[in-house]
């Protein structure tokens, strides 16, 4: 399945809830304010680095650019809107962690 996270991991619990729930073989796409979870040098970096071994973690490039950030944790893939669509083709169901 595909998990969508659009909340900052600093402000809300959505990303943590998602990480707790996501199982091996599933994928997570970070969008909107969720992209901050993909960045280096935050308290979430270790968790994300550990998670990418079992889970495909992607981040939406246009949302990174809008926020002026680009230091993405190793193993996290940057995708565009087309890549977002492809992820929803490859995975089902899709759960938005609102």
């Amino acid at each position, binding site marked *: 399945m595909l998990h969508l996270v659009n909340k900052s991991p600093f402000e809300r619990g959505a990303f943590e*809830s998602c990480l707790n729930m996501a*199982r091996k073989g599933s994928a997570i796409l970070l969008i909107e304010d969720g992209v901050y979870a993909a960045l280096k040098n935050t308290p979430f970096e270790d968790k994300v680095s550990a998670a990418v071994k079992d889970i495909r973690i992607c981040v939406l490039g246009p949302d990174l650019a809008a926020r002026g950030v680009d230091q993405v944790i190793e193993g996290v893939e940057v995708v565009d809107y087309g890549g977002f669509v492809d992820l929803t083709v490859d995975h089902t*169901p899709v759960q938005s962690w609102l």
Partner: protein
Amino acid sequence: MSEEIQTEYETEGVEKKFMFLNRKAPYGTIYALEMLETVLISAAFDQDVTLVFMDDGVYQLKKGCDTKAVNMKNFSATYKALGDYDISRLFVEKESMDARGLTIDDLVEVIFEDEDDDWAEKPAVHVKSRDEIARLMEEQDVIISA
């Protein structure tokens, strides 16, 4: 316009697994109430419906809500009515309950009649582990969250 754009779809015989995932507290925002409206409608479509309550969503089922002083519509009773709509699975995440010091006795009772068991009355609210819910989630066709 309506002649050109398709506004009806053939769904005869389709039965999908729908999960309604509730993660927000009631009353502070409208999501719990409006999600419930979605659930009630979907019951009419004979789909395979599961409700999940996790994170602050477990507070939606807290019994004893009294909204007189805030002058908001009290929709707690609607959860109780879900059993009458043949909704038999309200799963509450154990980890979220524990973190909030809640037990199943704190929650509203929802009773449904089990047609596979001579219409015996059974409780619809069940506590499930995070792991069970994670597995169930992957089996769904549609997850609606708010």
